[in-house]
């Protein structure tokens, strides 16, 4: 097991370096660089000033040399310096990480719990109106563009009904502390987390429903019935456990997006997380910051891939022992 994990970590490191190299060239292939953007904003877009900035940021060196310097830094756990924000990249990311994780993990839990519950429910009532209702709703969530759902949610629950705050992480200027602050953040969290979770909720629902129905046709379910087991036990112990295997894979995929998958939601809801940081960095051609964010989100995907595989060994004895 330990050997398995070490091997996988080794492979992950190689993949990560490959991803970083690719990202590096992709970013540099886009027109414009931070020097040009900063000079433009300063209203002093003359060639000499830009050249001076480029030299200062190290952008005048050949690309390969720049890549070498960057990767060397990464290997020493140094993600570089954001000249734009005048702060180390790692500091910037760490500042924003908690807000993002709070949002994405809440969305993750909501979608996983509600999605599988709805899927189990629908499969138990297959063909009845409740199944049709759940399935149609899932299809709607599945097909609705995230930004539209987000805007509609704000319009409905925040602007029209005025039940929930429509943007931000907490009430600015209220200076709540302790439980009051937690509740305040919680209220702010509801809309973005639900919106973000809708898509995956629909996916879990559809997957769980299909998987439950498929497993319930298998021979061992008939064996369980032939034993005289009650159908509630058969559902839970025999069908549900086996039906969850593909859902675990899917959950691993979603978990991989915990860091990088909320750009749109954070932008719409003005959530002070990594997604917005990435969006700003992109607009400003903040190379180091952008690469830093990519690095963390790529690492997260790889990490959760590994966790899924380890988890699989626990849920499925065939993988563990074989």
């Amino acid at each position, binding site marked *: 097991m330990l*050997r398995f994990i070490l*091997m996988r970590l080794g492979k992950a490191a190689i993949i990560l370096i490959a991803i970083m190299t690719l990202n590096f060239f992709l970013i540099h292939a886009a027109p414009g660089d931070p020097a040009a953007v900063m000079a433009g904003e300063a209203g002093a877009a003359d060639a000499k000033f830009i050249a001076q900035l480029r030299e200062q940021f190290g952008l005048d060196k050949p690309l390969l040399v720049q890549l070498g310097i960057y990767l060397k830094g990464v290997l020493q756990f140094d993600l570089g310096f954001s000249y734009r924000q005048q702060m180390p990249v790692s500091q910037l990311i760490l500042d924003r990480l908690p807000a993002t994780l709070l949002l994405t993990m809440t969305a993750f839990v909501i979608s996983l719990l509600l999605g599988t519950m709805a899927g189990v429910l629908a499969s138990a009532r297959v063909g009845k109106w409740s199944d049709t209702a759940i399935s149609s709703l899932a299809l709607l969530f599945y097909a609705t563009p995230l930004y539209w759902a987000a805007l509609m949610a704000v319009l409905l629950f925040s602007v029209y009904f005025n039940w929930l705050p429509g943007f931000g992480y907490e009430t600015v200027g209220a200076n709540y502390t302790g439980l009051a602050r937690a509740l305040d953040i919680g209220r702010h969290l509801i809309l973005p987390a639900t919106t973000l979770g809708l898509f995956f909720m629909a996916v879990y629902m559809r997957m769980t429903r299909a998987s439950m129905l498929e497993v319930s046709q*298998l*021979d*061992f379910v*008939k*064996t*369980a*019935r*032939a*034993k*005289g*087991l*009650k159908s509630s*036990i058969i559902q839970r*112990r*025999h069908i549900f*456990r*086996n039906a969850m295997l593909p859902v675990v894979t899917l959950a691993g995929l979603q978990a991989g997006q915990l860091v990088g998958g909320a750009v749109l939601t954070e932008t719409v809801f003005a959530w002070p997380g990594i997604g917005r940081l990435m969006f700003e960095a992109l607009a400003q051609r903040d190379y180091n910051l952008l690469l830093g964010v990519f690095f963390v989100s790529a690492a997260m995907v790889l990490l959760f891939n590994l966790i899924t595989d380890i988890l699989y060994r626990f*849920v*499925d*004895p*065939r993988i563990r*022992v*074989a």
Partner: protein
Amino acid sequence: MMDSVTEPVLQIRDLKIALPEGADRDFAVDGVSYDLNAGEILCIVGESGSGKSMSANATMGLLPELVRPVGGEIVFEGKDVLKLSDSEMIDLRGRKIAMIFQEPMSALNPLMRVEDQIAEVFEAHNLLTPRERKRRAVELLTEVGIPDPSKAARAYPFQLSGGQRQRVMIAMALALEPKILIADEPTTALDVTTQAQILELIRNLQETHGMAVMFITHDFGVVAEIADRVAVMQYGKIVESGTADEVLDNPQHPYTQKLIAAIPKLAAEPSEVPADKAPILEVEGLNKTYVTGGGMFFSNARVVHAVNEVNLTLREGETLGIVGESGSGKSSVGRCLVRLMDPDSGTVKLAGQDMATLTGSALREARKSIQMIFQDPYASLNPRSKVGQIIAEGPMAHGVSKTEAYSRAVKLLELVDLDALAIERYPHEFSGGQRQRIGIARALALEPRVIIADEAVSALDVSIQAQVLDLLADLKERLNLALIFITHDLRVAAQICDRIAVMQKGKIVEMGPAHAIFDNPQNAYTRTLIEAIPGREKELAAAG
């Protein structure tokens, strides 16, 4: 044989079970009546679609959805089972009537340990404490003869062999000492030697526990081994019933007569292929090893020597049987010969040219001459292609024009006794036997010199099987083909093969003329295989 106990424990009277609309007939079971007596083994025999499993499933309340009983009664302990409430039915299942199924691979929950699955039977009926349940599980596993029962109890199903899993199923069924054991094709998925053991086990347990056994099978050989009484079903009706000896030795109904006549006889005729015919296929030193688990980074990889130094020769016009049990490597040999799989070493000379090392266009060209027919007539035809395309595809890939390829496809369909209109239809519109004919036509389309038939009749009912075997023999003659016939079924091998190679664990342990293999087997394993063939003793006795 039966003792004098003839009191029925189960009475089925005029049972009618309706099929959903759009099925090929209205009733799966149409007015069936029979008794199951205490202490007897009753075999319900029939081909697929005869409705033989339906009355058993109805007795357990386990009919598929949409299939429902619409008339008659099933009387057990004075009550009509069909009228029981859900909770009464649950109480009956497992405790009074237990059931085992065909596929031991899929009949156990893959995520639960064996002991937990056995313990569930007690739990379902609120018996014993959790600790006692596990202790009973080990006792039951001991009774059904699993080696190292306490270890098997802790195992997951995938860690056991097919025969062991079926023993686990039987242990589960015995747990609450039911009055009736229903066995639905329990040995069909097992190898012949394992089958013999399981049949003996069921026979012994039936005697020691005094159960009544309802044994559903398609195999008259199995009937001869185990049945006290027999009921033969066709299209949802019982066409004939009686004691095993009556039905087997003196069948009255034409359908029973036809079924019994279709069973391949165990005696092989001497080969008619002259020994001086030129070899078309020469295989020397063939090896293939599978490595599973671990991959390149791990040391605990499992290595299976699937094909181990195999040598064989196939002459023009000859049929060579490769027989063996599952895992013997017989299919791996076939796949290496057509290069669906690359052998690790060895030569495969097809008309003098070594197939084993060819690549690219030379391999494609050579492949025309050696074609394969597969086991599963459902999975081996692309469901999205019309039959015409399936047959014409090969020749077209080799440069034959479309019109030419399709007109040849029509001729081939006629050759395998199918209507020419079939080219416009899809595979799902055909029965299993017809699909296997399509598979044969596809193999013939490239005008091969050698055909490898891998369990080509194993998925077919015995009467269809006989037709396909006749067709193959006829085509071989007319087209001067050489045939390698891979099978687990020694009866089939006896009927069709000139020579037979017996494989065990990747090696050919014995090879020789078919009649010599059956009349005077030299190898101990060959003898075990032949002795395990169900119905053999009865056949020998009948032959005198």
